[in-house]
């Protein structure tokens, strides 16, 4: 499913990780439009050479707090159609909420650890680049754990809960089917059941579906 030639910009202040990411993505046939260490540098890189997706570390100079998040929100407003993958050593559910405030299209939020599973990471990056969503399983777990709608969730079967988690991460029915080793038809049936049980609006686009699920979990 690798799409050759997707253009990626990277903002990551740790040189080791930045170089590693470049090496990994070039090896997988991506084109690196810029690999920089701070928000300002990424802004000018994006302006000169717009990528399909930007990989952004959340903690960057100068204050090492949430520079990356603010940069992401800024880029989202300015560069329509560009995917943004936030990349962090911690998961802050609130950051995810800020990021997904109005749309989940072309947004990703992953733990840095996920690069260890190269295939999953690359898939997530591609999904974000073409307007999909990629949320870290950790975000979904936190939302599932924190939600006050436990009554509705308890009506789901264990299998349906698995499907719900994968759906919230932003995966398509085909990807869910592959992950759970079942047929796509079976996944479709589960999804329909989930939507009915949780009283969610049915939608065809994957990223709208993610948003609906997140709204439900977060309410």
């Amino acid at each position, binding site marked *: 499913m690798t799409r050759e030639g997707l253009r990626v910009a990277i903002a990551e202040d740790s040189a*080791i990780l930045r170089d*590693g990411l470049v090496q990994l993505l070039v090896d997988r046939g991506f084109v690196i439009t810029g690999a920089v260490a701070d928000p300002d540098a990424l802004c000018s890189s994006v302006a000169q050479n717009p990528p399909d997706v930007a990989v952004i570390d959340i903690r960057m100079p100068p204050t090492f707090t949430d520079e990356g998040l603010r940069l992401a929100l800024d880029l989202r407003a300015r560069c329509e159609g560009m995917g943004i993958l936030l990349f962090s050593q911690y998961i802050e559910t609130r950051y995810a909420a800020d990021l997904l405030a109005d749309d989940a299209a072309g947004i990703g939020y992953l733990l840095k650890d996920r690069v*260890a599973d190269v295939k999953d990471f690359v898939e997530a990056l591609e999904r974000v680049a073409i307007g999909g969503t990629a949320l870290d399983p950790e975000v979904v777990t936190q939302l599932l754990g924190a939600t006050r709608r436990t009554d509705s969730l308890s009506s789901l079967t264990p299998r349906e809960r698995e499907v719900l988690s994968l759906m919230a991460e932003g995966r398509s029915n085909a990807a869910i089917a592959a992950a759970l080793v079942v047929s796509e038809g079976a996944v479709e049936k589960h999804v329909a059941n989930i939507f009915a049980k949780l009283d969610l609006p049915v939608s065809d686009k994957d990223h709208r579906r993610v948003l609906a699920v997140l709204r439900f979990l977060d309410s």
Partner: protein
Amino acid sequence: MVEQAESSEVRVRLGGREMSLAITHEQAAAAKALARRIAREPFTRRAWHELAFSLVSGGLAAVALGFVGVTMATGVLLAVTFFGVAILALSLRSARGFGGWTRGLARSLLGETVDDPEPFAARRGFLGWLQSALRDRVAWRAVGYLVLKVPWAVLAGLVGFAFWWDAAVCIAHPFFGGGSVPAFGLPRALVPGGTFDGDGTFTHAVALVIAGFVFLLAAPWLVRAFVSVDRLLVRSLLGPDPVAARLHTLEHARTQTVDASAATLRRIERDLHDGTQAQLVALAMRLGMAKEKLEDPEHADLAQVRALVDEAHRGAKEAIVELRDIARGIHPPALDIGLEGALATLAARSAVPTTVTVDLPARPTPSIEAIAYYCVAELLANVAQHAQASRASVSCAQQGTWLRLVVRDDGRGGAELSTLGSSSSGLVGLTERVRTVDGRLYLTSPTGGPTVVTVDLPLSA
């Protein structure tokens, strides 16, 4: 008899025995100065201020005690009703107010700088206010002051003020045609009949005026004696509550310690985040790539896989070194063998040649050892980074109950507390850390050097 020599000799016959007193010039001069002082004392500003304080504070205390006494009694009588409790609380609040006025008087008239006690802190709601007012230690101490002060003020009036008054009466007496004037206060017991009588004769008038001057000379000293007790009362009962002050100091110290440990934790987290964690993520990523490539052994490019594994291997070793450094930052293992060995290790690692002398008869407590160690580590790092020094020295010695650390370098000098703290854990942070154990840090660094930083730490904390 009088010789112009080193000393004057005075011969006195006493009961058939002749005694001689030798008085040196210095003694004579001192006696003269004393006499002058005594003669001038009634006309000094200080004497009048003390008299004014004695009178005004006494009057104020009498009024205050009257008011507080009556309101408190009313409050206690009505205590069964809610109203009584409220009156009691108001009474205490007013006692606090009177205390404040007296403190102001002492400040302006006696120059007695007593710090204000902690301001009244009411809890939320009317009931909270009542409770706080009734338990206000400052107010209760002010009541105690009033109870002690009023009898003391009466005594001060009968003795101190009386001497001023009678002095004025005696001196003015002959000019107003004489007659019988009653003496006031203590002098009443001293003069026959308790009155100053004038029969109009010149000798009598002179005698009265002389008596008046005697009273006048004694008056300021008597008032001063009373006021000195007043000072003590004001300081001990109207100043900050010693219990509260101690609590405040402890709270302050605790906040600082908590802040210091929070800063340390933040630094460790930053080190882990920027260093080790990134290192391990990159390592896992390379191993992940290698694994993927090996999944299809037929087409695997072994040279590429080997390069990835090589990088991962190197990354793992670097991560180990970083972790060790971070752990050493949390607790330096070198400290286990004592400060001397730890400092020697630091000196050996320093980029600038450094000599260490340690002279400690006994080991300080672990926390002091750790702070001393970090001070030297930080200061030597500063020397290496900023000083352009060719050599440095560290000395560590006991001085009484203190441990004195001196770090000296022959660099370019010009260091300041603010500029040296350029890194997040610089000299300013060091000063804070030293202060948490009531230690002190001094810096002398003239332009051109040398720079000497002295750190004093208590031996046990």
